[in-house]
């Protein structure tokens, strides 16, 4: 025992002396700390506090009225809360699928796909918005058709989505047990293809038969909610995939193979093994994606057309109120957006402090 205690002491001393050697003089430390705090205070803390001060300057009642009394402002909040979840879910599905594809499979064009995922990051949001205007706008490629009989495309679109969703589900869920695989069931690819064709036909037939979509009516994408969703989803596309790819690559495929060899189906493997392993990456990606989607201005500004009470999201509404010299109203909406951003940050920090203990990535990668 005594030998142990003796041998433990010297390293402690060594660590202390190393720390002393590495430490800079006090004035450098205090100077740098002060500088950092001053810059942070002037550039971040004071403006953020100012938003809330300005918003609440005339009292809580006025603040409340500014937020909920103005129907256009109210609508902008509702619109943001509609557009963001749709874009988020879309990106979640596509992000997980893309990350899965890139990290687990090796195929020609993999690097190109990785670069393409990053494209929305590097393209200016205004250009992204313009892109959609050029495709779906009145003078765009699809504009005349959408204006003439836009809803005619809906049955195809919905049926295609359903058939596309059926394909991976068919492989993941693997509905027929192996023992029953006789005759037609022996060819799972054929079953999947045939099944998705049937799904497509079924959805198409139902939509046509019940005439769910109006005929000869223009379908507005630009200057309407679909355009807002498209632009938001495009700009925030890389967040989920970018977060997941490194996590999935670090986790590897061994655990998933182990699950399969233990008799799990693809569906069970995904929910029991893959999702828990990428859980934190997923949550982190969603938070970042959400923050960006709510604050998105450039791309949305181009496709929205700024129709008050129709296509104004919160950031657009703030700009408009500001230009109308309605400063209290402007700051009231801004405070809500800021509050959401702060909440997101808090959530992110909470997760990060939780990460090392239970995370998949840093947990027990001893190899």
């Amino acid at each position, binding site marked *: 025992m005594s030998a142990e205690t003796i041998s433990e002491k010297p390293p402690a001393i060594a660590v202390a002396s190393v720390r002393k050697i590495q430490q800079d003089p006090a004035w450098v430390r205090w100077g740098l700390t002060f500088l950092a705090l001053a810059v942070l205070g002037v550039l971040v803390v004071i403006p953020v506090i100012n938003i809330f001060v300005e918003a609440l300057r005339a009292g809580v009642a006025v603040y409340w009225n500014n937020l909920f009394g103005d129907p256009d402002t109210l609508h902008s909040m509702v619109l943001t809360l509609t557009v963001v979840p749709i874009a988020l879910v879309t990106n979640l599905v596509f992000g997980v699928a893309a990350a899965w594809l890139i990290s687990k499979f090796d195929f020609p064009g993999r690097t190109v796909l990785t670069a393409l995922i990053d494209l929305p990051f590097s393209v200016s949001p205004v250009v992204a918005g313009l892109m959609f205007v050029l495709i779906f706008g009145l003078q765009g490629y699809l504009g005349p058709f959408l204006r003439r009989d836009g809803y005619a495309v809906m049955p195809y679109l919905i049926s295609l989505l359903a058939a596309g969703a059926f394909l991976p589900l068919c492989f993941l869920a693997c509905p027929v047990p192996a023992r029953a695989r006789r005759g037609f069931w022996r060819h799972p690819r054929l079953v999947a293809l045939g099944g998705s064709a049937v799904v497509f036909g079924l959805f198409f037939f139902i939509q046509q038969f019940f005439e769910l979509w109006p005929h000869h009516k223009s379908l507005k994408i630009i200057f309407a909610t679909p355009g807002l969703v498209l632009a938001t989803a495009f700009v925030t596309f890389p967040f989920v995939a970018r977060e997941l790819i490194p996590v999935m690559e670090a986790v590897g495929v061994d655990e998933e*193979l182990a699950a*399969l*060899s233990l*008799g799990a189906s693809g569906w069970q493997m995904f929910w029991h093994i893959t999702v828990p392993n990428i859980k934190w990456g997923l949550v982190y990606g969603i938070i970042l994606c959400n923050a960006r989607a709510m604050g998105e201005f450039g791309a949305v500004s181009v496709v929205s057309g700024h129709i008050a009470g129709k296509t104004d999201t919160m950031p657009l509404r703030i700009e408009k109120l500001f230009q109308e010299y309605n400063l209290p109203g402007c700051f009231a909406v801004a405070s809500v957006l800021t509050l959401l951003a702060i909440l997101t940050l808090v959530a992110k920090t909470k997760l990060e402090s939780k990460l090392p203990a*239970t995370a998949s990535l840093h947990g027990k990668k001893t190899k």
Partner: protein
Amino acid sequence: MSILVKNVTKTFGNFTALDNVSLEVPDGSLLALLGPSGSGKTTLLRIIAGLEVADSGTVLHREEDITHQSARDRKVGFVFQHYALFRHMTVAQNIGYGLRVRQAPKAKIRARVEELLKLIRLEGLEARYPGQLSGGQRQRVALARALAAQPRVLLLDEPFGALDANVRRELRQWLRNLHNTLQMTSLFVTHDQEEALEVADRVVVMNEGRIEQVGTPNEVYHNPASPFVHHFLGNVNLFHCRVEEGMAYIGNTPVQLPAHVSRDAKTTRVYIRPHLFEIEKTPDGNKSLHGTIKHLNPAGPVVKLEVTSDWGDTINVEIPNERYRALQLQKGDEVYVRPKEMKFFSDDYSI
């Protein structure tokens, strides 16, 4: 025959991992796939498990063709090299997973998990996470997880590869005993010849995607079928000999050629294991090889000598400690070594 592999070929790009491999695994046997890295042993194991698809060939289990069955339908227990334990599940959840996905009742899962924990001697650790276990414990949990759903075959990929020497030796014996208790057909992959010879009933020596030899540890060690097997199992001295008038010459020492070696060849190779030398300080007719001791290592039960021969080759010799003491050998001594057993291979073989 529990597992029958027929003419399996597998390529990865330009690399041929398995080249027309056929293998029989008898029921209840413990079989080792032994070979250097890149010899295709892990690929063969994964094809049997269904984790890899063969380009051609068939895999049978008791006459049932399982070539196109998915991994989940094959009911094999697979133990991964790095364990691949589910890191977010406890030990008990890990072990019970194979039963959970087959919708076994909860009470049954719990009973089976307890039984297996007893088997792997980790009672009381069921609530731990894999990250809180040592390497040897993780290995045993991985084994228990593979055994839980009562697989038809147990496949182990380098089961002791990532463990330190002591734990490895201990687990090796434990696996041997476990196999004796369970009598389950098992295959394990290893590159450690000692491990294969000690644990397995039968050893399959693989090289460059082909099977070199299948046999009991005794057979492959004492009767290697090819120079490669001879080289891979244990230390060996290799001499290139001239062939003249039906005799082979190691340096200047003539030795009788066995019948199976072609007398027409100009040269041949002879393999002699280090412990199959007789060592003397005086010449014994002209049957001995002459040389000087360059280095000797008397630590351990056998004394290892490096002898530089007259013609320049180094001969590795192992002699018992008593013999070393009786002869009072020193570094620089002139000695005569006489091979007791030789293995000849014609030069058209290549390693």
